[in-house]
């Protein structure tokens, strides 16, 4: 394996936990006056700059590495070995890898369809300024509804409007932001693969 690939792999692997902690810390303390004054007072601006450069370098190396995986079979095999813990040393291990990949592919596809279905559900809440009488004769101050709305080009997940004395709020999205959703999918993909592979190794 090329030295540059080895270096990239270890740089990404070792840097990953630090980058995650740094990103969480930066987003948590961003625009925090106490942190700003600490940084300026103790002249740590330079250190923050270096940290920022390291994070950008890590993101760049990761992006290039991911592109190279698409075109390099050796690199793909190396990454596969590290993530799957299967080395494909013989025919049986190659079959285990294939069976597990097939299982993971189907499981992920099913999970994607499930998430797509969930994303189409709409939760609506209405509040009436003046209680209204329902068909059953009861006075109702509001209603709650669950509907189905498939609109892939609508980017608004939460809408609120008020007209004719009725306040209406509707939510149409998954209860996770894109980053959370991607992390969940990555965990599910790796987990489903290992779940299947373990069955053959038990």
């Amino acid at each position, binding site marked *: 394996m090329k030295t540059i690939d080895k270096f990239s792999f270890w740089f990404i692997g070792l840097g990953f936990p630090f980058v995650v902690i740094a990103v969480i810390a930066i987003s948590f303390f961003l625009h925090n006056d106490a942190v700003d004054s600490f940084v300026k007072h103790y002249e740590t601006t330079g250190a923050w700059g270096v940290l920022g450069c390291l994070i950008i370098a890590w993101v760049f190396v990761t992006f290039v590495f991911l592109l190279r995986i698409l075109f390099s079979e050796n690199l793909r095999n190396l990454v596969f070995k590290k993530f799957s813990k299967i080395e494909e*040393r*013989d025919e*049986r*291990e190659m079959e285990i890898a294939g069976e597990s990949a097939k299982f993971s592919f189907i499981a992920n596809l099913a999970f994607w369809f499930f998430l797509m279905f969930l994303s189409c559900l709409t939760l609506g809440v209405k509040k009436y300024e003046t209680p209204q009488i329902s068909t059953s004769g009861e006075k109702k101050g509001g209603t709650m509804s669950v509907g189905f709305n498939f609109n892939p080009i609508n980017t608004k997940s939460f809408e609120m409007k008020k007209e004719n004395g009725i306040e209406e709020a509707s939510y149409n999205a998954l209860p996770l932001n894109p980053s959370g959703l991607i992390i969940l999918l990555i965990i599910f993909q790796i987990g489903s693969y290992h779940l299947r592979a373990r069955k053959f190794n038990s």
Partner: protein
Amino acid sequence: MGSLKPKLKIETNLSLLRAERKLTQGQLAEELQVTRATVNAMEKGDYNPSLELAFRLSLFFGMSIHEIFKIKEGDYENN
């Protein structure tokens, strides 16, 4: 290519043959260029080897494939 879910129930005296030659599973695996887990799986009947691996076993033990593996009488699934 071998099968992880054998449709044919195949019996083998591989463990006996290995013991006669005083080999461990690891040693036999090394000779056959497979993993120890594969040798273990073959001996337990959990894995049917590919044609290539069956011939390597045959050459190693100096016996025909039929002397090492045989279909279990009256006990195989039709698919």
